[in-house]
């Protein structure tokens, strides 16, 4: 009888141990889930911000003639007169933008080689980012011509 009681007790204790183990596992699981969710949420927020920024840049009067049609004169002028720090006041931090025609060559624009150039960039840094590429037109004011190009907008994962 004594041995039977001890055996029952041990089994009961073992059962309780497993129950407590499950509760602790549950707590750890929920905590880990929350942490993973936060990480995924942050990543998702960066992607959402990049897309939102892309849509805003497509209609921003600083750069465009009309929606999704960039003015090469405005792009060149913005490149030469507005610093990245100043654009951050309007569009926020930790982003960049590149715009290029579909030609294979890359000729960055400035006031000396305008309009014989095809590439503009703003706030570019050497950091990993979430990037969206969108087809756009670039209106060549001097030649009165619409070229096909690509807009790249990205948000950096780490704030710099």
């Amino acid at each position: 009888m004594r041995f039977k009681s001890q055996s029952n007790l041990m089994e009961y204790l073992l059962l309780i141990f497993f129950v407590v183990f499950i509760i602790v596992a549950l707590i750890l699981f929920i905590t880990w889930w929350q942490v993973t969710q936060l990480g995924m949420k942050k990543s998702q927020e960066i992607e959402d911000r990049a897309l939102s920024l892309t849509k805003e840049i497509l209609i921003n009067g600083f750069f465009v003639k009309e929606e999704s049609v960039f003015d090469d004169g405005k792009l060149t002028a913005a490149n030469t007169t507005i610093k990245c720090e100043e654009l951050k006041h309007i569009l926020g931090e930790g982003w960049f933008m590149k715009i290029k025609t579909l030609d294979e060559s890359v000729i960055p624009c400035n006031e000396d080689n305008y309009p014989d150039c095809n590439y503009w960039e703003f706030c570019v840094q050497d950091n990993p980012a979430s990037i969206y590429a969108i087809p756009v037109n670039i209106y060549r004011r001097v030649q009165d011509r619409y070229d096909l190009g690509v807009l790249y907008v990205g948000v950096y994962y780490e704030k710099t």
Partner: protein
Amino acid sequence: MIEVYRIFQLIFGVIVSFFILYFLIQYTSNYAGFQGNVLKTDILKSFRDEVSDVYTTGVYTNFTLFSRYDFSSCAINTTVHGVPEIVCDFAVSGIPITTPLLLCPGKRVFLWRDSVDLGWYKLFYVQAVPDMTLIFVPMDDSDEVWNLMRTLVSHLPDTSDPRITVNIKYDFCDGEPLKVCGGSSCEKEDFLKVIENVRAPSLRKCEHLPQRGRVITFSKSCESFEGICIEPPLMSGVGNAYISGTRRVFVYKDPIDLIALIIGYTKKDVFGITRAERVFDYKNKFFSEMISKAARISSERMKLIENFVPGQDECEANPGLKNCYCKDVYRELSDVLHTVSQIADSDYNSFQDMVKLSETLSHANELYQVLIERGCEYEV
């Protein structure tokens, strides 16, 4: 007689239950409070995304999630080093917002896009407005007042679409709201028709306001009034406006300054500052910064293009040439826009500075229209 083993089971069960309950209660109570703020922040972020969609697409919409909690303390503040933020009493830090927005929170708000057209640049912005009835009290019937009313209403929302759940109505008042549209206040387009066809000043102050009524008085002298009082423009479209409950004089130079006051209106925050002041200050700081940068870019662009358009002599020698007779205009416009970029963010409370800005912007617009007429530039 109860077994010892049974007693052990009971005691152990109680201890384990206590442990589980203790943890659950503590976690739930912390989480509930925390979750409330997390949900409010999520709603604000959702609002910001909705505003961004309206800004990029131009398609108006309703936003009703504000009804879940109290967002009446929320406003937009400009920051020194970054973008403006939506700040509320319950949140420790603000939510950054890059979209130009004039905000008045309510249980449900109507979001729509309006624009400031300067000729050479069009600045889009979003209005977020709750249910309201705008009561106009024109104490004189001069052309300036009537033109100003017409311009203001054209920049305010139209909620006649049956899909819109927010109601923004318009009415005149002369002692009592006149209900000029078939016995009730008007939708925007109907009110604009009334303004076109009727011209009669109000003789008495407005009383018995409708629920959510906002009074806008137009008078040469704003001595005793309720709500907002606007003096007709004195010079170059610049004038003074006042809000009841504050002695501050608001200098307006474009209709959006007045729209900012109307949207903000008289409600005060815990510091005694009216919402109208906060919206007005945000509008002037943020919008001015955008206009200043846009002017700098456009000025430089005009200089670049000037090098590639034919001069007077060439045009006279070859009459069929494109972009003719524009070189001098480009040069002058570049200089004027350079001036705009320098004075756009000057003191917006100074009447003289705003007169200068208004005249310079007018001049820039005129020059740009000349370029459009001569086929050298496009309409923005």
